[in-house]
């Protein structure tokens, strides 16, 4: 009898603890977002009013209009979506190729190369951006253009800065944002696939690449989805390289980062334009949240099923 009472009360206590935990953490997560949304709907006067903390007395969309005009929202969103999609597709392609190579083929130096893959995850971008900047400034397409210049002297090296190709070239070659992680994900996933299908393909005379293209990729839709979501989000949020490599054309993250300076340049005191900045934040965050909301279930199932971990 005693034990039953004990068990029951422990389980009730646990439910309370769990509820408190979830509510607490949920609060910490949602608080800044709700705060941002609420600030973004207030007029300047309401911001200053100390009696208004959460709910604005009346809702205004003026901050959004300001933020959108500063960030040139229409063009920026189109530009960023384009960069993000193309880079993500390129990255999915190059990382899945590499992942498959590491998973199914045993060639000399495989171990060392994979350690290099992990190295690219560990070494941070800050160490590399400056040199990448100068490389992009004077890009000779791996000396190809140098050779071409022998025949046509007017050909100059490419200056890729401020173009989307600063993202496309690395992405196509497996060096996109957190590409090492993607290669790891693909490798783990391909390793977990049963070999029978591929062996059947070989017996039927398919080359390795054809097998990869026709058999392996269709079975890996889960891994591709996970990589797509992660990659898309990280490209959208990419802050360091977007501020380093872009100037005139602005990806979304850069536009948001600049918002602060644009607002200051217009002579407005920063503490009184929180609403515009927060509107900018909401505008920035919403597309990704929508995309995530749409794909969430598949994404989580994908993580669970892909055998990523252990």
């Amino acid at each position, binding site marked *: 009898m005693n034990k039953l009472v004990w068990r029951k009360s422990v389980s009730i206590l646990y439910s309370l603890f769990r509820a408190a935990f979830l509510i607490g953490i949920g609060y910490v*997560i949602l608080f800044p977002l709700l705060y941002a949304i609420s600030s973004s709907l207030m007029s300047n006067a309401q911001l200053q009013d100390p009696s208004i903390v959460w709910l604005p007395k009346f809702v205004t969309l003026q901050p959004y209009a300001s933020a959108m005009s500063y960030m040139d929202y229409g063009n920026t969103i189109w530009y960023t979506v384009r960069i993000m999609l193309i880079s993500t597709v390129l990255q999915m392609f190059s990382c899945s*190729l590499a992942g498959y190579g590491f998973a199914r*083929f045993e060639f000399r130096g495989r171990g060392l190369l994979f350690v290099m893959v992990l190295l690219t995850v*560990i*070494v941070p*971008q*800050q160490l590399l951006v400056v040199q990448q900047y100068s490389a992009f400034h004077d890009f000779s397409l791996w000396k190809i253009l140098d050779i071409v210049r022998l025949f046509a002297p007017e050909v100059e090296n490419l200056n890729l800065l401020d173009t989307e190709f600063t993202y496309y070239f690395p992405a196509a070659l497996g*060096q996109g944002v957190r590409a090492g992680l993607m290669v790891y994900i693909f490798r783990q996933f391909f390793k977990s696939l049963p070999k029978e299908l591929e062996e059947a393909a070989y017996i039927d005379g398919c080359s390795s*690449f054809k097998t990869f293209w026709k058999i392996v990729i269709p079975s890996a839709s889960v891994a591709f989805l996970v990589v797509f979501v992660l990659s898309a989000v990280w490209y959208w949020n990419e802050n360091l390289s977007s501020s380093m490599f872009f100037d005139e054309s602005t990806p979304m993250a850069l536009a948001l980062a600049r918002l602060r300076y644009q607002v200051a340049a217009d002579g407005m005191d920063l503490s009184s334009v929180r609403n515009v900045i927060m509107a900018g934040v909401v505008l920035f965050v919403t597309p990704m949240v929508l995309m995530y909301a749409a794909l969430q279930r598949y994404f989580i199932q994908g993580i669970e099923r892909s055998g990523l971990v*252990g």
Partner: protein
Amino acid sequence: MKVKLKTVRLSREARQNMNGYWFVLPWVIGFLTFFLLPMLESLWYSFSAAGPLDEMEGLFSYLKETFTGIQNYNHVWKEDPNFTNNLVDSLSHFVFFLPIIVILSLISAVVLNQKFHGRMLARAIFFLPVIIASGVVMGYLNGDSNAQQLLQPGQQNEAMYTSFSFADMLTNLGLPTAVTAQLNTYIASIFSLVWSSGVQTILFLAGLQSISEQYYEVARVEGGTAWETFWYVTFPMLTNVLVLNIIYTCIDLFTDTSNAVMKQAYSLIEKNEYNTSAAIMWSFFAILGTILIALLLIFRKRISRNSFS
């Protein structure tokens, strides 16, 4: 006389394996161009006075001219007090946050793995930080901008607790001041802690899902309590993910842009002082590398081979 003819004929399998080189070729090209080369250049900068847009007359004379040995490192470690101060800040921040993040994400994953009403919603909310946490956004939300502050530092956190003063409550409990001070630091950083644990929670959750039901059945049959089940079944199966999370958190904490050392390095870049900046970054990452190697050595017996081999 017998002549031995050696013909090199690769077996079908070996030829097959050679195809692997083709698959990883794009990655290798990218690695050399966009990673290895910049990295070596950066290493060079840290030992020289070179700049990225220098005119190079000839490779060797350029190398000879600009080489300055460990002068940059000397400057950074011995002469400039900023780096050592920032380093202490960053490392103490790291030591505090690492265990808390790992434990917090483990608890979150365990809770999110259970069945309760509104589980889907809870998961969606918990993963929001992963989607949203871009440097720009975090800077604005946290009031931690470089040049100007939208909100005063810490105001964000204070605003959360206006109705209720945790600090007062703790002091009233009569705990020694060292403990309350420590707890206060943790509480004030709750925002940053929770928002940095998104990925780790996902990883733990995936790890939990991969534990086969059979183990739990055995535990139930043997009459284990929930507590025992956790420590004897769940936790040991999570060793791989645990190590992965620890390593990931280390890297995350070191490369976070709001890190004092990285801020200093970055501000030097903006002033065009690439060499000192490179020296700072390489020193910092040498420390990170040592920590990672130490971690791998400590845990090498526990990592099951299939993750990394």
